[in-house]
């Protein structure tokens, strides 16, 4: 399995004084500064409403900060318009959602090919890479099934394949095991560990301490929109 083959800058993600307010005094993020380096697996934990999902949305270019800057691979997201952000997500970001968010009208294979189609890759190349990914993720035999016919674990694998299709610099995961049974959850965790071990940079938002300690090399704990604590982790088996 391959990740970004270029020479990524040492710092992949840099947040500087990021603040997000939703009117009044409600602050989802309150002056957050952090860096994520290439090849790191960072888990963000905290209670509901602490701002961890807002952080993920900001880095994904799905939301904009009220103040502060977010740079991903030296690209200031604040300077990009909506189309620019779409291109940024297309080329630099892979996303895994809690509820998979596959397109129901597309087969497993087409869900994966879709990501390459957006970049203008040839249909032949896209199909070849999608089949490689599905094979590596152990679901090649399910390629013609529609999402409704797949198990939760299989759907999440398809979602991972889609996220990896364009060799993203950064893989974002929002509660990636939150909707899975424990066995499927363990399989997805193994997958994330494997990806990180071959150099894929990960940012995982989760409530699950087991996921964080298994998959992440660094843990950031959020409280009230701020970083409450940061620690390095030894991965557990």
């Amino acid at each position: 399995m391959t990740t970004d083959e270029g020479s990524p800058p040492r710092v992949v993600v840099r947040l500087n004084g990021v603040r997000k307010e939703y009117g009044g005094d409600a602050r989802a993020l309150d002056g957050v500064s952090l860096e994520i380096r290439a090849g790191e697996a960072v888990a963000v934990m905290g209670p509901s409403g602490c701002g961890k999902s807002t952080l993920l949305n900001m880095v994904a270019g799905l939301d904009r900060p009220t103040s502060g800057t977010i740079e991903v691979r030296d690209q200031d997201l604040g300077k990009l318009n909506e189309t620019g952000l779409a291109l940024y997500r297309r080329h630099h970001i892979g996303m895994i959602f809690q509820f998979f968010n596959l397109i129901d009208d597309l087969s497993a294979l087409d869900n994966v090919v879709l990501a390459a189609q957006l970049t203008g890759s040839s249909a032949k190349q896209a199909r070849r890479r999608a089949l490689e990914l599905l094979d590596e993720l152990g679901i090649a035999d399910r390629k013609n099934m529609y999402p409704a016919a797949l198990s939760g674990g299989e759907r999440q694998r398809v979602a991972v394949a889609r996220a990896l299709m364009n060799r993203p610099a950064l893989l974002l995961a929002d509660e990636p095991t939150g909707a899975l049974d424990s066995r499927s959850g363990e399989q997805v965790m193994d997958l994330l560990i494997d990806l990180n071990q071959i150099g894929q940079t990960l940012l995982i938002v989760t409530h699950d301490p087991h996921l964080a300690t298994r998959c992440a090399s660094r843990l950031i704990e959020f409280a009230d929109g701020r970083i409450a604590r940061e620690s390095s982790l030894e991965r557990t088996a």
Partner: protein
Amino acid sequence: MFVALRDIRFARGRFALMGAVVTLITMLVAFLYGLTGGLAADASSAVARLPAASIVFGSPQGTALEVSFSNSSIGPAQLTAWQSAPGIGTVAPLGIAMSRLTSQDTAASVSVLGTGAALLPPLVSGRAPAEGQVAVGAKTARADRITVGSRVTVGAQTLTVSGITADRSYGHAASVWTTEPTWQRVSGATAPSALAVQPGSADTAALDRARNTRTVSRGGALAGIDGYSAEQSSLRMIQGFLFVVSALVVGAFFTVWTVQRGTDIAVLKAVGASSGYLVRDALAQALVLLLGGTLTGAAVGVAGGALLSGGGLPFALSGATVAVPVLAMVALGLAGAGLAVRRITSVDPLTALGASR
């Protein structure tokens, strides 16, 4: 087109249903176009295909001028003035009246046109009528078993058939052609209804002012056929309503479809699809649906119309004329779909993550 075509394949039942609706509306529009064309020809071909550029209407001194073959009358002074006008090309008196043709044991309503041989439709057989003679259309000749030399009664006059012409009709009655003096005897009129003119370099406006006449183009003269304008405008209004209905139906379908796909659109945006890409994809989907539906509908409409016209229904539709309603249906359907899918641009990709602002 990547998502568009796969959507159609996945939701083939919904798209087939919608395609069937577009097909049926197009069939109806194509059929109406054919009927409009057929009725127009049935009401006016005798005038519309005259070898004359303009028609001159007149009225007796002191009465109001109007473009109407029924109410128009060209007096001798007007006729002489037009025929002797400097620079005028050709001027032929034209009498038009409705009558009844009886032959052996059959009778039919006919339009009787009295004029010179120059305005006669192409002859299939025989020759142009002289005094006391008449030329009938091929269809009438077949239906009433009339041949050259047959004796027929037109109105109260018994005439000899001098020739068989190409089919023309006026006021939904087959046309028969005779000389202007014979026409006067048949119709009881004392002057021709109008003049068929090639104006040449004559100042027709000055002639109109001086001689209380009104010159209109041959196409404009069709409004002078009783009921022609009302009939055509009624049919065109129905066509217009069908176009609007089509645009609304397609727009409504794509509105519901876009709303149903809201989450998918958000996901597509979250993984990097731009609004432009998604709008283009949705419009391509609408185009596939519209082209499939309209081409099928037009083909069925043309074929059905051809079958019906064999049974005597006035129907005229060619590949070229059916292109107009097909293109209009596609353009209006795309406009409806365009209005519906513009909501794609306002879908927030953040909703893909289940977040709310």
